[in-house]
């Protein structure tokens, strides 16, 4: 990049992180909505986490 790599790759890197972050946040939001709508999933996940913590 003729000595300008920091500026060029920095621009694309930040843009990619922000857009990928947006997609990730949307995916997390979808998961939270599904959990709230289906408390059984949430409680089974909590039980699983508790058992895993017990093993650790």
């Amino acid at each position, binding site marked *: *990049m*003729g*000595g*300008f790599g920091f*500026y*060029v790759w*920095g*621009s*694309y890197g*930040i*843009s990619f992180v*922000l*857009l990928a972050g*947006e*997609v990730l946040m*949307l995916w997390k*939001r*979808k998961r939270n*909505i*599904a959990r*709230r*709508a289906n408390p059984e999933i949430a409680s089974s996940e909590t039980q699983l986490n508790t058992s895993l913590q017990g093993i650790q």
Partner: protein
Amino acid sequence: MSKQRINWYKYAAPANFYPLAGKLIPLFAVPAAILFIWGMYVGFFVAPPTDAQQHEYYRIIYIHVPAAWMGMFLYVLMALYAGIGWAFNARLGSMMAQAIAPTGAIFTFISLVTGSLWGRPAWGVWWVWDARLTSTLILMFLYIGFISLQSSIDDVRRADRAGAVLAVVGVINVPIIYFSVQWWNSLHQGATITSNSFKMAPSMRSAMLIMVGACWLYSIAVVLVRVRHIIREREQEAPWLAESPA
């Protein structure tokens, strides 16, 4: 022979729009990914290796300009939807405005950061209080204000109306951003692409326009995903939602 007409008003109801949005998402998301890859390929491997004046850092243009355009377009679209939601008491209009705001804010932020990374080698400074940069920063604050205002009011319809007032009043900033380089002395260059001229090499122009297309398709896809989440959150008591997949 009678033509079957689509009743568009039908899709103003969240219950009808929700499944339609779900079907449309892959139609925008997949081409967006293809265009991003194609645009980057053309921009980095087909476009001339070095611009005569701007060296290699001119390649920032392929993300900076599409992001700046999206920031402005999405604001106008958000204000339009917010205005429709406010004027016609259309819930889906307000939900669309709410769904557009974060994506518009992200693109505006990208345009500011990439502009700063371009300004440092080109102008020797990270930031100047120039009309174009300052008005774009105000656009960023308008997005943040809209999001904060909506989330700070518990009554959803009141939040929609308050947000709509801010969004509609803030539209005045968009032509100010666009014409700022003509109205005031600015370090920022003027419009590269206007309705009757293209001041770029064809391969550079192609890469930039492909990236603009990618950003548009990406924005439509994520806004549709987000509006479905908003519909689910706001209409969680509605019986039709129990029959719809997430």
